[in-house]
């Protein structure tokens, strides 16, 4: 009798749960490993982010992991809605993950191009530059000189940013991020800034001067990725896969 009950229990336990269409099993989270120590790297481990909406909880990111050390450049590929922007927000630290670790062991930039890079529309270009200099502990005079030179805004740098055209705003944002020396740049589709000539200037500044800095590049620009990145992370519906063969990853993400 007892044995029969035990056998029944065992058969219940061993039976796989029934899965309906559109459902999937999410493994129970493993106990967290030791926290990341003072390592000089950007480490993303088992990152999960879900949002609560009208139609229930949406898991936008589901267990993303990667790691980049100083000087390494990684491309993040994926279709629209694959979770790239969410990943950028989490790495940038503006939103907190539902679970998982983001460790920023390198001196990280704010995401280039995201909403103009945190430029305050009510302040002039100069005041924005002063703010960045203060937050990052740079010399204010040097920062102002650099930004004025790079952004090429002329006298308009004294006007509030809300009066700028979108191109001028992007130029200012880009100049601000170049004024601080970061060890890791977070680049979110920035390479369409301004006109041809200014694009070239940005490209030179970004990939020339900062050759030694690490980079997380979210882009669709095949040429740039092939030229600079040594790894690629392909995102699809919140899941990720890391590739060392960038060309293969590009082809794969194009076929997704």
């Amino acid at each position, binding site marked *: 009798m007892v044995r029969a009950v035990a056998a029944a229990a065992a058969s219940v336990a061993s039976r796989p749960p029934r899965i309906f269409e559109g459902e999937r099993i999410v493994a129970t989270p493993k106990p967290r490993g030791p926290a990341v120590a003072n390592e000089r790297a950007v480490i993303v481990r088992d990152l999960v982010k879900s949002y609560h909406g009208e139609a229930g909880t949406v898991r936008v990111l589901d267990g993303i992991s990667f790691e980049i050390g100083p000087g390494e450049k990684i491309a993040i590929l994926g279709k629209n809605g694959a979770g790239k922007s969410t990943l950028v927000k989490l790495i940038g630290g503006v939103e907190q993950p539902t679970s998982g670790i983001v460790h920023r062991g390198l001196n990280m930039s704010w995401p280039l191009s995201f909403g103009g890079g945190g430029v305050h529309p009510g302040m002039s270009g100069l*005041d924005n530059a002063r703010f960045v200099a203060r937050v990052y502990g740079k010399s204010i005079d040097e920062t102002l000189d650099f930004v004025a030179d790079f952004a090429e805004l002329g006298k308009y740098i004294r006007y509030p940013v809300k009066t700028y055209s979108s191109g001028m705003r992007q130029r200012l944002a880009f100049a601000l991020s170049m004024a601080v020396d970061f060890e890791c740049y977070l680049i979110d589709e920035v390479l369409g800034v301004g006109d041809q000539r200014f694009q070239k200037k940005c490209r030179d500044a970004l990939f020339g001067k900062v050759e030694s800095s690490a980079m997380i590049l979210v882009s669709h620009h095949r040429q740039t990725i092939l030229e600079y990145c040594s790894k690629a992370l392909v995102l699809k519906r919140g899941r990720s896969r890391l590739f060392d063969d960038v060309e293969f990853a590009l082809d794969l993400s194009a076929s997704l």
Partner: protein
Amino acid sequence: MTMTTERGDDRRRADDPRGPQRGVVRLFFTRLAVQWRVIRALMIRDMIGRYGRENIGFLWLIGEPVLMIGGIIVLWSLMRGAVTHGLSVVTFALTGYSMLTLWRHMVSRGTSALRQNAGLLFHQNVKVVDTVLANIFSECIGCFVSFLFCYILLYIFGVVNLIYDPLLMALAWLGMTLFAGGFALLLGALVQSSKPFGRMLQPIMYFTLPLTGAFYLVDWMPQRAQDFLVWVPMVNAQEMFRAGFVGPVLTFHYDPWYLFLTGIIAWAGGITALKFGERKIHVG
């Protein structure tokens, strides 16, 4: 779940080979220095961003409350005559409305800080609590300077007497800042984590107005009301502020230690709530 929260560049500089104990102390001070730098930058950004550089510029931070306090002083003087219950109406309005302005500004700005400044969190050195602290500091200083401005003006024209105990007043001001700051942090975090609560914020703020003690002295109230009012931190701060202003001519009911204690409790609750509210921040 864990989020490493180093303040970027300064962490490595603080690695001290001379032993962990010293390293920890130095780490604390370097981070404190970074935090102060960031808060200062945020305060300046907030002032310039809000008032611009036109006409008197960021002096509007002082000018706005001065207009409010001045208007109220004129209005109350017209309504109530020169003296009520043995207290000059100008003194009553000046002390009452300065405190009330501080309370209203602190809470409304503190609660909106989380929503408005989320984009700034992209800067690795800027933490949520810094944006709230910057707001709290600038409001505390701005309102106090506008109080001083009004006071000096009125004193020159001989409308109010010399302050009896400046230290007591300053302590009352700081006590109010402490409590209102913690309260703002708590409300801000709750607004962030629950939408219905955000809708209730305006009524809540409105119903706290009689509890700030700006419109009466506790001593004027019936005994049963007094028994309740002495437990309200804002009333304690207000009474203390007035006691410092007019001196022992009238009876005031306050307990500085109680005010301080409630301030600490409000901060403890506020920071805890902020830790949870932080995770609900959603940008764009």
